[in-house]
């Protein structure tokens, strides 16, 4: 009887593993099967000359260039907001906060991390409405507001990774500098932060991945299907994940659909690349920093 139960459990676990692996193979395999042949310069630049597209002399109509430019700008801007704020907050939590303050902040950041991205998007949208009504009539959903909303989405990740990277440092590293007369600040800047850097950077890379793949937030805050390369931070823009979403229901012909497959492969590749990079940095950097000392 017991033997039978054991066998069933073992069999079941192998079966689950097989199902999961076949699903992942089906997803990636299907994408590659349908989309690999579209991969090439034409996928990004369409029929436009790549050089003049890059120099913004000509607008690309049938390629992914505007969407990629939009995603790149969006990621850069939101990370630009989130890194200073998130790192500082993480440092405060790890190094300065008292037990009670920390508890309250922990709860709030857990909550922020758990909020569905569409709720953050809705917040960004209502912020736009508010600003439009009370500050300037010129403000509409745009790149700037999207990046701010996205920054709030990734903020808790950056805070957490900074905090954990600092808190995981061994006690003797923490105390040596102080014992030699360094002030708290000096200890933080010259001893703790360099050692925690790997953890912080890998967290930031994961946050970039979230920025690049998120669709719900930008959907509500200014992304559109066709806008060209954004001319200013106050204009509409295109983005890779939204393009994939849009094409999936609105494709007009097989060629557009093929571009959709290409875009999906591209986004998958970008996200996995960031993911791999984060992993490598996390694994290798601490040793380097350590051996230099």
């Amino acid at each position: 009887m017991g033997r039978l139960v054991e066998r069933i459990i073992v069999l079941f676990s192998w079966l689950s593993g097989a199902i999961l692996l076949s699903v992942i193979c089906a997803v990636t395999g299907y994408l590659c099967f349908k989309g690999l042949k579209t991969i090439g310069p034409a996928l990004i630049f369409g029929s436009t000359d790549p050089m003049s597209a890059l120099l913004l002399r000509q607008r690309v109509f049938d390629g992914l260039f505007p969407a990629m430019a939009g995603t790149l700008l969006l990621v850069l801007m939101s990370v630009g907001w989130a890194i200073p704020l998130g790192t500082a907050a993480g440092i405060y939590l790890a190094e300065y906060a008292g037990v009670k303050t920390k508890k309250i902040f922990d709860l709030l950041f857990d909550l922020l991390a758990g909020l569905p991205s569409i709720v953050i998007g809705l917040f960004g949208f209502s912020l736009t409405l508010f600003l439009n009504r009370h500050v300037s009539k010129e403000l509409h959903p745009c790149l700037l507001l999207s990046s701010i909303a996205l920054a709030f989405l990734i903020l808790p990740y950056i805070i957490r990774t900074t905090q954990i990277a600092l808190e995981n440092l061994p006690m003797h590293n923490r105390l040596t500098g102080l014992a030699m007369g360094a002030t708290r600040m000096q200890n933080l800047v010259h001893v703790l932060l360099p050692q925690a850097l790997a953890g912080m950077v890998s967290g930031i890379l994961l946050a970039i991945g979230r920025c690049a793949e998120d669709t719900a937030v930008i959907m509500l805050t200014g992304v559109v299907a066709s806008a060209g390369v954004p001319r200013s931070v106050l204009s509409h823009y295109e983005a890779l994940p939204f393009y994939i979403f849009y094409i999936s229901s609105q494709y007009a012909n097989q060629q557009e659909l093929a571009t959709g497959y290409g875009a999906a492969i591209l986004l998958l590749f970008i996200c996995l690349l960031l993911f791999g990079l984060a992993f490598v940095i996390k694994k290798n950097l601490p040793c380097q920093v350590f051996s230099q000392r």
Partner: protein
Amino acid sequence: MTATCERAVERLFFAAAFVSAFVTLFIFGFMVYYGLPLFSGGRFLAILTSHWAPHQGSFGIYPMIVGTLAISLLAMVFAFPLSMGCAILISVVSRGRLSRILRKVVEVMTGIPTVVYGFVGIFLLIPLVRNVFDAGSGMCVLSASLMLAVLVSPTMILFFCDSFDRVPRSYGHAVLALGGTRIQHFLHVTLPCAWPGIIVAVTMALGRAVGDTLIALMLAGNAVQAPDSVFDSARTLTSHIALVFAADNESLEFKAIFACGVSLYLFTTILVLMIRLAARARGKVGQVG
């Protein structure tokens, strides 16, 4: 001089933490403020339980709540056994290289963008469901929850493995010394000790399933009705927000999406509190060892 500087920097760090935390509360305040005409006079409950018929002046989000629960709970029904099986495979059944490779694959899966799952779902899963179950367009609760199960499983597997690994090795030595197998060890020692971690994992996965927008928006068909069967089309709270937000900003129809937002916010709060309770229980299990 340095002392003042130090204090200033500390203040700056505190300000950053305060602003970040304040945003969390600010989001809630904003949504309540914008949805206010709908919430005043105790009408919030009425909205949660009435139907969506904008032309008759009824802006209830009941169908969306049922749709959300149906899709995410069904996804959990698929995802839980799958994740449990995979976690057992990774941390109990397989050893060495295979275990490491499997874990790596699962970790990589967490990095796959949601919209890619949705995209593949439309062109691969939907026709499959349509043909196998003869289910209309194929855009239904079942399709969405199958894909959602794939989306949330990797996170759940990693959390399961983590909570199995946290159980101190010394606990099991007695079992193994008495000639028990690894499976017996798992069933009678690891599993009873790891339950708080399992609850944390399931709650987090449920939060992800409820909060996800793209999968349901792309695969569930978005009909405004409480689904009667798994082959019915349904709309979730999240996709409702995505579909209605472009309506006239002053209309009550538009205000209703803030009711969705507030419901999602409150639901998240409950889940986060549950996770904290379970995590505290997990801390106690760890202390015994």
